[in-house]
């Protein structure tokens, strides 16, 4: 065929590098309301659920058993399942209906009922509903702080950098698993050195992650994965009961935690059981609620390529975030893993959560360039900061970040690098040289960093665990080297575990250690004139308005 030149040109556009799949329900390649999804139903006899979404109790898998016992308000379930789903969908975007009123209904829904309600909404209505349903009034976002060489000096500097830009939660992980304790100490020290109150985590294997928290190297955890089918859950090496127990383990040490799910994971692991992604996700959401966990990271997350490949997939992903909020869980709404080669499309991916505002619009905005993102790259990265600030300024929307002066970033990066240098010295870890401190201060990526002896670092990391070093030792190390303010911050973070205020739904801290959660900052949106409005949050609006590269008419020489 002779090529039509416009078609030939279009094929060169980045969007053609993305993967698209036609609907294929048998393998789970369908976003929502698939032909094999069950119809909502519930039967309760003597307080025991005997039928759930068309399935009889004898056929219940572990997920059904768990949700039926702990995840649904059985007192109202039969009545709510019979309600008209369009009517409930209407309540979701009607500003006159308050959040609490809806939560009473959604708490009594089965997974299929939740799916049916959300499927009645178009994308704009989902944005309206999410604006009202997110638990915390003030939106925020979360950042990834990693680099491909697990360089701890750079992690500390990047954590400080990200803290100044506004991330109240930061997440690191490792390129090499054995680095975990060093990365954890580096992100926590770096973040506290720049902005007290930032919560930090290190994403590793479940038991290892808990252990880091227990030692006082991290403040919260999020990579506690749950899945929508029993066989994938087992492949993930857990059951609802083990995950529920793990949730209680975290709370028992005063550590914040949320679960992680996200559509596409069951397809990716080959056991979607012919169900749609949204239906399976609704099961994950209810099993999170059933566990008494305060929140969930969902919205495709690391499997975003799968829902992103099918029709209505990105709508469905906002839908699953919305379901999470509807059942009163903190929602960290993904927008993390890179999934598109097209700048237009990755903007599209984010726009719903960005406009509505969620508890964490991104649950992993890469605070480094994606080159250094060991979560396999994020949808937006450090090189997108200026674009993101302009979005916020153009639309007067708080996306959770704000511009910072170059001079302040240099100062903060340098201070963080020096603080971690002191900690390493005090704890007998391999030396961090002044040259490394200088490089981390001015670095963009790990290419700008001198090489470290990685074998020595890994030995040091293991030694740290063997010696039973804890957060208290980090506090002492900081104090011993004159970093009294950072020592104080680090200690405050540990001290907050005693109070447990940040175990409540959607909790973050401001720079003065005031907790901001769905309890003392609950979302009160009820239409225009209510809820969070950026221009009423005057300090933050001033920061966003004050774009460093905007022309200042007062200083202009005409």
């Amino acid at each position, binding site marked *: 065929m002779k090529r039509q030149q416009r078609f030939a040109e279009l094929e060169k556009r980045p969007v053609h590098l993305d993967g698209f799949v036609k609907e294929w329900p048998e393998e789970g390649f369908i976003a929502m309301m698939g032909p094999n999804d069950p119809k909502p139903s519930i039967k309760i006899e003597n*307080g025991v659920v005997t039928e759930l979404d068309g399935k009889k109790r004898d056929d219940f*898998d*572990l997920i059904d*058993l768990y949700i039926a*016992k*702990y995840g649904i308000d059985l007192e109202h379930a039969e009545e709510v399942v019979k309600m008209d789903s369009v009517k409930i969908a209407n309540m979701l975007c009607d500003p006159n209906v308050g959040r*609490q009123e809806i*939560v009473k209904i959604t708490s009594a829904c089965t997974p299929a009922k939740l799916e049916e309600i959300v499927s009645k909404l178009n994308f704009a209505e989902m944005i309206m509903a999410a604006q009202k349903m997110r638990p915390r009034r003030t939106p925020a976002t979360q950042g990834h702080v990693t680099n491909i060489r697990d360089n701890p000096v750079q992690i500390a500097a990047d954590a400080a950098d990200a803290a100044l830009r506004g991330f109240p939660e930061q997440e690191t992980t490792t390129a090499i698993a054995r680095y975990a304790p060093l990365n954890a100490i580096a992100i926590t020290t770096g973040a506290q050195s720049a902005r007290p109150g930032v919560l930090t985590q290190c994403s590793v294997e479940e*038991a290892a992650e808990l*252990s880091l928290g227990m030692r*006082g190297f991290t403040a919260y955890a999020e990579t506690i994965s749950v899945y929508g089918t029993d066989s994938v859950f*087992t492949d993930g*090496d*857990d*059951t609802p*009961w*083990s995950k*529920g*127990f*793990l*949730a*209680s*383990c975290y*709370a*028992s*040490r*005063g550590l914040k935690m949320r679960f992680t799910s996200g559509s596409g994971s069951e397809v990716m692991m080959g056991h979607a059981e012919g169900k749609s992604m949204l239906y399976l996700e609704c099961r994950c959401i209810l099993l999170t*609620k059933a*566990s*008494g*966990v*305060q929140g969930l990271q969902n919205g495709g997350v690391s499997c975003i390529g799968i829902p992103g490949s099918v029709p209505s997939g990105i709508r469905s992903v906002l839908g699953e975030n919305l379901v999470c909020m509807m059942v*009163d869980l903190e929602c960290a709404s993904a927008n993390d893993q890179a999934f598109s080669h097209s700048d237009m499309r990755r903007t599209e991916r984010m726009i719903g959560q960005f406009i509505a505002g969620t508890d964490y619009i991104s649950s992993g905005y890469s605070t480094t360039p994606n080159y250094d993102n060991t979560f396999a790259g994020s949808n937006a990265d450090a090189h997108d900061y200026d674009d993101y600030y302009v979005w916020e300024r153009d639309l007067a929307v708080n996306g959770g970040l704000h511009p910072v002066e170059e001079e302040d970033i240099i100062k903060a990066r340098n201070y963080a690098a020096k603080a971690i240098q002191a900690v390493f010295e005090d704890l007998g870890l391999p030396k961090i040289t002044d040259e490394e401190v200088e490089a981390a201060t001015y670095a963009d990526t790990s290419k700008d960093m001198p090489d470290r002896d990685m074998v020595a670092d890994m030995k040091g990391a293991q030694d740290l665990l063997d010696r039973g070093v*804890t*957060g*208290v030792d980090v*506090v*002492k190390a900081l*104090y011993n080297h004159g970093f*009294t303010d950072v*020592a104080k911050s680090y*200690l405050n973070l*540990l*001290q*907050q*575990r*005693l*109070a*447990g*205020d940040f*175990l*409540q*739904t959607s909790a973050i801290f401001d720079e003065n*250690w*005031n*907790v901001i959660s*769905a*309890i*003392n900052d*609950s979302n009160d949106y009820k239409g225009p004139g209510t809820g969070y409005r950026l221009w009423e949050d005057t300090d933050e609006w001033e920061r966003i308005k004050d774009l460093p590269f905007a022309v200042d008419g007062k200083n202009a020489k005409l």
Partner: protein
Amino acid sequence: MAEMDDLVKKIMAQMQQEQTSGQTDKQRTATPTASQQKTLNTSDYPLFSKHPEMIKSPSGKGLDEINLDNVMKGNVKADDLRITRETLQRQGEIAKAAGRPAIQKNFARAAELTAIPDDKILAMYGALRPYRSSKQDLEDIAQELEDEYNAPICASWFREAAKYYESRKKLKGDN
């Protein structure tokens, strides 16, 4: 569900009773705080600023004693920086008052787990993972939770898991 509710209620009542009578068992090393018996509400939140006097470390230290000076003198150990059973119970009351009873149940389980050492708790979690344990193994842990750690809610969690792991084939050897 009702069964679990009753159990939680019973435990809570027991804990409160112990508090009033000033009784301590070997698991509860914290000094019981005065006569605070009122059920907390959302207006009592955050505890850190509204009720600092209620917050104690497991060894009975007050919030004001957790300071740099004491850390440097070696008076604050890592074990002092842990939440207590009582504080989790209070946060549970606040969660319930905010309309989140499932969170209260999680905190009730967690309150029991405060008594269990880190290594032990990690091993218990491992035992609940699929194909790790026989039914007897899980029931033994339940017994241990009850006898050694005064943790009946968690014990019934393990017994429930044992029952369903058997019928749904998640016990050791089922894979």
